[in-house]
Structures are given as structure tokens and as C-alpha cells.
């Protein structure tokens, strides 16, 4: 689960990391009021789950509260990589003397948390990594021991941070690691961690923030679950999560319902394999879980049908411990609850697969066809979409 910049920065602040005292506005007038209250120069920033906000014009500096209102009115409603902006963060301007990059993430290959710093903050870190990877200092953390002071020294020394900022940097790095652990995060990133002049002092401040939370860890952090911005997610994905289904919306025409993540991906791949030449492909990834019981199948059907692009449905179920005839009866039951006229191709494999297919066929649902192999099922689904066009 991704947090918005303003949410991440509020969370950082809880772990002792200095952040600007900006606020969120949902309309241009609110932005004006916040900018007036902050005084001086402000920055209006789109709060949206998409990268490249700056390039897309989603971040603007405002010299006056009136400027802030104008910028906000332009940014709100903007579409950035398919996401509509419906709130902006109005932050005070900062007198920036330097920009650092600092992040904690999971290193999947090393199986450990990784803390990274670079003197090349403020830039796209992927780009820094591509062009000059040596400019990113990387330190692995033993998850049983946690981040230690000497590891922070290694970062500070590695990025040639001026000595007078080390104490602040240590506090921020430790705070970020604690935030990462204390939030079951998979990423906590500050970019830039800016060196700013404020009231004659040189201080480090997190001007931007990014956090991703491990969905499996959310149960331990109910306060984070409330930060979920459902306006950022397709309605189908929200419904799927509520029904405990794993669903990802794609842009094709074949609605797929499969038990098992690997088999679901293979099914997607197969429909694309045959459909590609006709501009036909999978409408979604959907893992209905191991048992494929009637309630789950019905919920899955509803989600698939809510996608208006869908022109055909492919059901691919491996009857493992469950028998295929039971699964087939479950599908027929679900069908009666969620009626549709779209062509449905059902492929059942495993225990009692013949009996299962017989049940499907004998249900006399004219829009439903059986298939014996994934190969055949995918072909039939592509044909069905072509016929419907």
C-alpha cells in the first residue's frame, strides 16, 4: 500500500524526522488559506500515487497566496499517468543549500533491510544508479540487530556529509529505520533530505517523502490502514480485496478467473499469446483461491462483469484436493446468482475432470463452452471476443 507524500511526512515526523509544516488542500481556496497562514513563498504539490509529478506540472512554487490558489486550481483535477489529482500539499518554501537522498528498503536478494544514501539527492535515484552507481552508498542491516550508529557513520562518511550535520543525520537515519520497522514498510524514502538555512541555522529536513507498506503487515498497524486512499484504486480492486480475491485490472477483453497465482499468470499469458495479433488480451489477473467455492466464484464474476471492456470470460480451474465435479456445480450455482450473456469458456482439470465438464455441458447454458486444455481454452476465448466484435 502506497502512502501519499503528506502521509509519509507525517509518519516521519512521528519518528523524530524534521519535515515542513505544510497542510493538505482539497480545493483552491483551501490552498490559498494555507499559503496565507504559512506566509512567504510556498510550494503546491499534487498528492497522487504516480511518479514524475514534477515533469507533469504537478509541483509549482507560489510567491503569494493568490499564486498558490491559481496553481492549486490548475493541479487539482489534473491527470497524472492515469491518476486524477484530488488533493494538493501546500508546503512552506525552503532555502535549499544541498540535497541528499536517504532510503530504507528490503533487499530481496540479500534478504535484509538495506539503507541507502547519496549526495545526489533531489534527482531520480534510478537514474543516479544507472549512470553512477558508486554515488549511492549502501549498507545492509541485520534485522535481528537493527541499524547501528557505526553504519550511519559509514553513510555520512561515504557521502562526504559535512561534519556539523552528522548528529542531525544520525537522528534522521535512525528515525527512518525505526519508521520502516515500526510501519512494516517495504520502502521509506526521503528525496530530497535537504540542507536548508533556517533562522541562521543549517538543518536537515525531509522535503519529500515516500512510503510503501507491506500489505501483509497492515494488520499490526490499524492506524496505517486508515491512510489507504481508495480514490486512487480501481473500484474492482477494492471490491476484490474486500472479497479476499487477488485482482489486478488490465486493459484487454478476456475476463480471467483462475485458481492460483501462477496458473492465473499463465492463463493471462496464453490469451495474449493467441490474441495479440488481433489486439485481444486479458482484461485482468484474478486468483480465486484454492477451493473455488460458489461464493468466491460469484464475487469474482461480479468483479469481472463490472469491467465494461470484458467481451468473454475464461474460467480455468485446477481441481486439486477439491474434485472438478464439485467445482463445476459451484460455478453453475454462481452463474445463476450472477447472470450474464457473455460467452464463457470453462476449463476444468484434475480429479473428475470429465464429470466436471459433463456438468458444465449439461447445464444447457448456451453461452458456456467447455475446454480440455489451457491451449484450447485460450484459443476459444480469443475466438469468442473476435466473434463479439
Amino acid at each position: 500500500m502506497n502512502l501519499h507524500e503528506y502521509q509519509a511526512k507525517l509518519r516521519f515526523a512521528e519518528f523524530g524526522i524534521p519535515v515542513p509544516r505544510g497542510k493538505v488542500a482539497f480545493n483552491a481556496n483551501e490552498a490559498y488559506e494555507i499559503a496565507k497562514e504559512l506566509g512567504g513563498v510556498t510550494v503546491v504539490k499534487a498528492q497522487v500515487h504516480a511518479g514524475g509529478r514534477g515533469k507533469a506540472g504537478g509541483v509549482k512554487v507560489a510567491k503569494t497566496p493568490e499564486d498558490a490558489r491559481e496553481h492549486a486550481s490548475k493541479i487539482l483535477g489534473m491527470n497524472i499517468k492515469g491518476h486524477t489529482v484530488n488533493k494538493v500539499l501546500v508546503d512552506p518554501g525552503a532555502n535549499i543549500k544541498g540535497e541528499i537522498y536517504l532510503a530504507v528498503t528490503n533487499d530481496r536478494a540479500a534478504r535484509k533491510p538495506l539503507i541507502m544514501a547519496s549526495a545526489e539527492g533531489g534527482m531520480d535515484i534510478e537514474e543516479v544508479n544507472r549512470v553512477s552507481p558508486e554515488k549511492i552508498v549502501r549498507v545492509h542491516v541485520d534485522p535481528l540487530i537493527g541499524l547501528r550508529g557505526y553504519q550511519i557513520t559509514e553513510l555520512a562518511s561515504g557521502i562526504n556529509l559535512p561534519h556539523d550535520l552528522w548528529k542531525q543525520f544520525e537522528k534522521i537515519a535512525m528515525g527512518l529505520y525505526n519508521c520502516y520497522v515500526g510501519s512494516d514498510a517495504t520502502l521509506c524514502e526521503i528525496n530530497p533530505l535537504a540542507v536548508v538555512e533556517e533562522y541562521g541555522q543549517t538543518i536537515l529536513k525531509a522535503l519529500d517523502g515516500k512510503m510503501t507498506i507491506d500489505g501483509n503487515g497492515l494488520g499490526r498497524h490499524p492506524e496505517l490502514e486508515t491512510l489507504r486512499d481508495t480514490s486512487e484504486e480501481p473500484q474492482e480492486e477494492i471490491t476484490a480485496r474486500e472479497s479476499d480475491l487477488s485482482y489486478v485490472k488490465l486493459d484487454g477483453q478476456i475476463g480471467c478467473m483462475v485458481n492460483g497465482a501462477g496458473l492465473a499468470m499463465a492463463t493471462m499469458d496464453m490469451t495474449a499469446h493467441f490474441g495479440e495479433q488481433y489486439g485481444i488480451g486479458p482484461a485482468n489477473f484474478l486468483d480465486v483461491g484454492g477451493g473455488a467455492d460458489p461464493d468466491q466464484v460469484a464475487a469474482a464474476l461480479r468483479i469481472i462483469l463490472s469491467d465494461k471492456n470484458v467481451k468473454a470470460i475464461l474460467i480455468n480451474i485446477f481441481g486439486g484436493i477439491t474434485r472438478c465435479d464439485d467445482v463445476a456445480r459451484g460455478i453453475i450455482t454462481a452463474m445463476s446468482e450472477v447472470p450474464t450473456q457473455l460467452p464463457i469458456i470453462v476449463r476444468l482439470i484434475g480429479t473428475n475432470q470429465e464429470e466436471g465438464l459433463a456438468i458444465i455441458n449439461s447445464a444447457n447454458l448456451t453461452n458456456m463452452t467447455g475446454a480440455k486444455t489451457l491451449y484450447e481454452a485460450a484459443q476459444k476465448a480469443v475466438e469468442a471476443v473476435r466473434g463479439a466484435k
Partner: protein
Amino acid sequence: MAILIDKNTKLVVQGITGKQGRFHAQQMIEYGTNVVGGVRAGKGGEWVLGKPVFDTVKAAREATGANCSIIYVPAEGAADAILEAVDAEVELIVCITERIPIQDMMKVRAILDHSKSRLLGANCPGLLTPGQSKVGIMPGYIATPGPVGVVSKSGTLTYEAVYALTQRGIGQTTCVGIGGDPINGTSFLDVLQMFEEDPNTEKVVLIGEIGGTDEQKAADFIDKHMTKPVVAFIAGQRAPEGKTMGHAGALVEGNVGTAAEKIEKLKSVGVKVAAYPEQIPDLIMQ
């Protein structure tokens, strides 16, 4: 011969009194697995399916000599259950539980590295040595004894592949599901090495998916150390970037972990890569 489990495996079921645990314990017993007992704190002294229940894995191991444990406990208690089995020095620990927080698994891995135990999973279907022992949730009837070793990140996709092999008369030594979590106990590389060393395994099927670099590491291992032919299938060729495809680990991040990258790497070391699961038996027979 087989790898990891065989007819001498003595299995203890952690969470045997739960719905899942009890159901699959029954299935495993029916398959012929030597289930020697179960564990559930607070139910020590009871009996389930004719097997004794213990309060702790340690007590179960002491009483039964179990050398393998399988975990069917909810995600919030699963890391603890794994550590309990590690602490009791169980040799092979199989964790079926899905949705274990990744930070828990990082800690578990750090502890495993200095332990006497091997973990398979979490979030895996377990493993099966046809005709001898099944530990996990794989349907037993799909497999038959023979010369092919199967290792996979996916559940039903493995069944599909194993069933396709069996239907074509190609049996298996052992079918191993390593699970689809980003951080797990046993990697492709570990299992490939075991198959390479197992005298009865003649060929190997590897079923991978998007996310991470395990398949690439497997390819390096195959290149340098394997003499036996490997057939592979990689799921998720059409997966979009930045979306988790069911398995927590099935996630293309930036351009790391794409199916195309994995397929190319595997092909470059001489692995035959199937275009779809049902093609696997054809490639094995070539």
C-alpha cells in the same frame, strides 16, 4: 530415491486442530505419509485423527522423533511457529501459511542461517515424493514415480505441470513447491543442487514467475554445475510493472524481474523454455 522427503520421513503437523491443518493431515495420512503427531498449544494430550497432540514442537519431537514439520497456522503466528520448529531442531520445516509479513521473514531467515533446519516456503504448497510421502497440500493423485524432478514457485501451476507429465506417462522423483514469497527458506538453487545430486533424477522441470532474481541465479547455477537437462516455464510474461500478481513476490520492480529477462537468461544457458505449461512434457521428451 528422492530428495528432502521419503517413506522414512516422520511428520508432525503444527496447527493440526485447525480446519486446514486437520483436513490436510487427513489427506497426508491417506496418501501414506508417516504423520506421527500434531502440535497445538493448550491441546497437548488430546488425540486428532488417531495421532497424539502436543503443546510444543519440542515435546512432539522428543516423543515421536519427528524430523519434519508442516505449519498450518495463521499468518500472525506463523513466524513464531517456524522459530519454534527451528528451536526444536526439526530438520525440514514446511510452511504453507501465506501473508506472513516480510519483515518477519527477514528475521526468520537471519535465524535460519545459523540453524540446523531447512525451511520450505512460506506460502508454498509443500512437496511430494510420489508413492512415498506427501507433506503439504498438493493433490496426491496428480503425481507418479519416475525420473523427473519438479521445482516451482507456484501451486496450481505446478499441479498443472506435474499432472501433464503424469498424463503422458512421465513420473517424478520429487515435486517441490518453494513458494511465491519474496523472502523464503529454500531457493531454486538449493533444490536444483539436490536434484543434481540425486541419482534417480534424470531431468528437471523448473517453474518460475516474475519478480526477483532467483531464476537468473538458477540459470547461473545450471550453467556452472548442472549436468542434467532442465526444462523451464516462466509465468507472467504479460504482467504490468509495479503490480503484485497474487504472490507477494510476483512483482516487476522497475525492469527487474521481468519474465522476458528470465526466459532469455535461461535460454542462454541451454535451458528449454516452454511457451505454455502443457508444452512441458513435450520438451522433457525431446
